[in-house]
Structures are given as structure tokens and as C-alpha cells.
């Protein structure tokens, strides 16, 4: 069964298992407080039903049926990620160690074959691995092999560096991500897309593509694009993908605003530096507040949290500008502490509002 369709059921199955666990925990508490007690027959029927259901979910989707299994799964995810990074690094260093011993034709064949074989490895692994951890590992290695493939062709033939490499890397990363439900590769693909679009926006305004960071505004169009991708394309079958798009979109939007709020020289706008910096600082506050409001309205905790994080960063940056040179350091940090407490109170209020929202992702 392909990972994509399996993952949709896996997501629902995992949610169901979590609800069963929560139900059992609450039922035990109610029985302990003698508020509710099921008859033995009812208990047996419910337990039997849940046991069969969870066994079926385990067999088909390898879900975590208990808190302990969840904790172990986190460990497996970390191990899978670290293993993938280590294997990818190993591929790079292996090639660098031996490539000079081969002629050009052999080098090209090795590079292309490594990409193709590792991709085939992902296909085969996905069919055998219900948990997805091994698929993720092999998927990352396949992506690393393809990155190496393109980079080394450039080095072997002295090809002029180009942002087109980012497009093909993004394409393969997203194909693997969506095909086999590997969120880490979705992130890799998104990062490549961010770099490519920012580079292109930069070249349209006359910059060299690698200088995209010299004009942080180059990142704003792609930030908006990313944030609204889940609105345009339904991601209900891909757990966490919509979250990644929104969070990366917001970070890609707010970081340039933060930079330009302190470095007006980097703006395309032909205005006084102080006007640019003041304008971006104000925009940062307004946009982060709007993002918090929007996240609460839609029930997107990750959007609210990102908005809050940047609102706090903008606030503390402003405090630093105003007060760092004006007062003794102990007083400055005391004021920071007071501001943090006020933030906590505000967030507590927001949390109350957030409870009332609660729309699904």
C-alpha cells in the first residue's frame, strides 16, 4: 500500500487510538471518584471492542496505542532523523574520498546511478515499512544523493552556478515528501523553494542571484505564497504539511521585516533610512498582531504561537533600541522581566479566547 493513502488512514487511526487512551484514562478517574461505574458486561464489551480495534490499527498502520509507545515513537523519529543525516553525510564524504580516482564518464555514471538507485530504495522500503521511519531515512539519503548528483556535475564540468539547481532539488524533495509522507523532505523542498523564488525576485531587480539576502524584501512574495498554499491545496491527507507551510511562510515574512526594521539600507524603497526602519518596525507589530488574531479565528495554534513569538521579538528589540543605552543594565533587565510578565498575562487571556475557537487544522 502506498504511503500516501495509508497515511490518511494512519492519521485517523492514530487520532482514534489517542481518543481511546484518553477515554480509558478519564473513565478510570471517574470510577475512582465513584461518579460513574460501568457494569462488568459493559466493561468487557468496551475493552474487547477497543482491543480488537487497536490490534487492527497496529497491524495496518503501526500506530502508538499507549503513552509509552508514543514516547518510544519520538525516540524512533529522532533516531531516524539522526541516522538519515549521518547516512547523507556519509554519502557526500564517500564520494569526495574516491571521485578523483575515476574518469569523468565513470563519475557521471556513479552520480546518476546513486540518485536512481536510492530513489528505487525509497519505493521498495515504503512498501515494506508500515511505520514510515525507514522510509524517511532512505528518502533523506535519496535526496542527499540527488543534491550531490547536481552539485558534483557542476564541479566536474565547471558549470556556472545557477539557481535552477534549487528548482530540481525542490521538485524531488516534494515528490518524495508527498509520495511517501516524509515531512522532513517537505521542509527541505520548502527551503529550496524559498531560496529559488527569492533569488529570482532578486535577479528581476538586477541582483546576482546569490545576493538575494542583500535585499530581504526578496523573501516576502514567497512568504505570502507559502502561507496560502494550504488554503489552495487540500492537505488533510498529509499530517503536519499545512502547519509547515504556514510556519515557514510566517518566519520567512517576519525575519526580513525584523532585519529591515534595523537595517533600512537593505530595502528597495528609495526613502530615508529612518523612515524605512520605522515603517518596518510598525509593520512588524501590526502584522504579528493580525497573525495572532487570524490564528485564533481559525483555531491554528501554530500560527498564533508564531505570531506571538515575533510580537515578543519585535517588542524586545524596540525596548533594546529605546533603553539599552539610557539606563543601567540591571534596570533594563528588570523592565524586560516586567514586560515578560505582562506578556504572560496577555497570553493567558489569548488562551482563553483560543479555547473558544478550536477549528480543525
Amino acid at each position, binding site marked *: *500500500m*502506498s504511503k*500516501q*493513502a*495509508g497515511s490518511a488512514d494512519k492519521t485517523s487511526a492514530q487520532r482514534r487510538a489517542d481518543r481511546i487512551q484518553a477515554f480509558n484514562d478519564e473513565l478510570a478517574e471517574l470510577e475512582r471518584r465513584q461518579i460513574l461505574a460501568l457494569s462488568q458486561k459493559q466493561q468487557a464489551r468496551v475493552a474487547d471492542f477497543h482491543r480488537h480495534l487497536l490490534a487492527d490499527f497496529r497491524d495496518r498502520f503501526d500506530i502508538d496505542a499507549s503513552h509509552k509507545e508514543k514516547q518510544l515513537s519520538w525516540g524512533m523519529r529522532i533516531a531516524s532523523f539522526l541516522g538519515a543525516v549521518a547516512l547523507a553525510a556519509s554519502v557526500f*564524504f564517500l564520494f*569526495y*574520498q*574516491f*571521485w*578523483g*580516482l*575515476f*574518469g*569523468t564518464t565513470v563519475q*557521471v555514471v556513479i*552520480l*546518476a546511478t546513486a*540518485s*536512481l538507485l536510492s*530513489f528505487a530504495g*525509497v*519505493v521498495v522500503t515504503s512498501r515494506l515499512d508500515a511505520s514510515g521511519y525507514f522510509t524517511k531515512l532512505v528518502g533523506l539519503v535519496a535526496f542527499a544523493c*540527488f543534491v550531490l*548528483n*547536481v552539485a558534483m*556535475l*557542476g*564541479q*566536474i*564540468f*565547471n*558549470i*556556472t*552556478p545557477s539557481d535552477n539547481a534549487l528548482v*530540481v532539488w525542490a*521538485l*524531488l524533495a516534494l*515528490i*518524495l515528501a*508527498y*509520495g*511517501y509522507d516524509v515531512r522532513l523532505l517537505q521542509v527541505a523542498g520548502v527551503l529550496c523553494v524559498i531560496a529559488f523564488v527569492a533569488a529570482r525576485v532578486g535577479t528581476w531587480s*538586477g*541582483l*546576482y542571484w546569490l*545576493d538575494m539576502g*542583500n*535585499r530581504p524584501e526578496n523573501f516576502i512574495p514567497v512568504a505570502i505564497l507559502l502561507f496560502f498554499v494550504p488554503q489552495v491545496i487540500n492537505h488533510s491527507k498529509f499530517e503536519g504539511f499545512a502547519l509547515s507551510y504556514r510556519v515557514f511562510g510566517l518566519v520567512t515574512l517576519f525575519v526580513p521585516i525584523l532585519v529591515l526594521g534595523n537595517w*533600512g*539600507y*537593505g*530595502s528597495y524603497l528609495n526613502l*530615508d*533610512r529612518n523612515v524605512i526602519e520605522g515603517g518596518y518596525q510598525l509593520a512588524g507589530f501590526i502584522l504579528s498582531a493580525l497573525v495572532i488574531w487570524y490564528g485564533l479565528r481559525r483555531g491554528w495554534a501554530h500560527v498564533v504561537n508564531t505570531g506571538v513569538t515575533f510580537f515578543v521579538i519585535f517588542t524586545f528589540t524596540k525596548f533594546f533600541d529605546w533603553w539599552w543605552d539610557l539606563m543601567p543594565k540591571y534596570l533594563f533587565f528588570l523592565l524586560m522581566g516586567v514586560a515578560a510578565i505582562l506578556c504572560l498575562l496577555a497570553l493567558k487571556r489569548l488562551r482563553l479566547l483560543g479555547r473558544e475557537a478550536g477549528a480543525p487544522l
Partner: protein
Amino acid sequence: MKEVMKTDKWTVLAGLAVIVITNVFALAGVAYNRGGEPDAGVELSERELSMWHAGSRDENSGLSLRLACRIERSDGYGGGYSCTGNPQWLDQAKLELLGINVPPADSDRYRRQRGMSSKEVFLVLEFDGEAYRRTLQRAEEELRIQQALLDEGLPGKALKVQQDRVQAAQNYLRDERNQKSRLFVVDAGLSKTRLRALYPDTGRYIMYRGLVNAGYYEGKSQQWRGTITDIPISHVNVPLAHRGLLDEFWKSGRRSRNEGLPRYAVQVSFGRRLEPWVEEVRAL
């Protein structure tokens, strides 16, 4: 199940297509670059192409040659190493011809210096030409001047100082004759066709991609000046077929200051996309 298999099939096809098409395109680009008559073909020596390994030799078995070229400074000396620096010909007028519009000199400092970014242009690299001859003459002139001062006779400490200056001038001239690169960046433009028409000798002039920036100098002469900030291809990979001689030289270590003479020459061709490749390596 049928829907699942169909989705999987499309994923496999899409992934294979990306890998295959990327490799085909890359190799087709290489074939295009190397097809037909090269844009330039020059025999450069170790002075212009020094051996280079990324990382330690044990970790990276590949070998490339680092392109060393210089710019002619306003004081007549050759400066820079990897084709970067402020050549005297890259003034405000030239910058504007390159499409780098600079703010008026009377505008405020902020406007003058706000975020100038690099622009990709075509550079003209001249091998063993007039720019090198002028630099060599400047070095010879400097030695003559210092020697003349020494010959006048100087007392005590001043004599020692002047002797050191003469020695330094001799070393500098020796380096210019034997060691330093004879490749100079002499011009820049936006059209390689027009540049090639201006510099038709393909055995002496190389068209190469480079990055140019602008900066405002508030020293003695307040003006906008250009800087060549980088060249995207600063290293030329050496295929296995041409490595034998170079590997021997690498093992024997760098050429010493006392010998100083280049040990090898490399025939390098530059193709239609101005990307270089090694044709031949020979010992000198």
C-alpha cells in the same frame, strides 16, 4: 487499492523523470558549451592556475586548479589574486555603462552607500598582454629608483633601510617575472559578442563571467569606483586523464620561493557558455 497503486505509479514516474531529465539537461549544457569552436583557448602556466584541493588531501581525492588573475591598480601595480579588486578603468562612467546606476555624488551619505549589490557582467581577461607589461615596467622602474637612492650614499640607519628597500624591490621584480599571474582583468561589458569584437584575439583574451559592485570613496578624490567582487567559476576541475603530472608535483610540494619558476602549463579552452575545461597538461 487501484487508486493507491495509481498514485504510487505517478510518484515513481515523477521522481525518475526529475532525476533523468536533470542529468540529461546538465550534460546537454556541457555538450553545448564544448561544441563547435571554443570561445578562447589559452595555455596558462602554474602562475595562472595553481593546484588546489578542497579540504584535506585524504578526504578529497579530486583536484582542481585555482584561477589567479589580477587587476591593474591606479598606482600602476598589479593587485588582487582571484580577479577581484578595484581596477583603475572601472570608474563611474564604466559602472553606468554596465547598468549600475549610482546616486549623484552630492546626495547624502545614506543614499550613496545604501545596499549596493553585485551585478553579473562579462569580464575580459588579458593573458601576457599590455597590462602585464606595464606592471613589469613599473616593478623595474621601482627597482631603478630604489637603487639610485642607494647609490647616492646614505648615512647610518638610513643606509640599512634603503638596502632593505632595494632588496624588496628586487624580490618584487623577481616575483613579477617568475611567479605572479600574467592574467589581468582589463575590461567588462554586458554583451560578450561586443566584447569579443573589441578583443578578437582568442589566444590572448578570455571572456569570463564576473560580479561587479560599486562603492563611494570619500578619500582624496571623492568618487564612485567599481569593484570586481567575485568570479563564479574560480576553479577548473582536472579530469583523471590529465592528473598524472600534477599529482607528482603535488606530492613534491609547492615550488619554493628560491626556484619560483612555474612547473607546468595547462591548455585551457573556454566554451560557448564561457565555462572552461582542461585540454592538456605538460611539464615546463
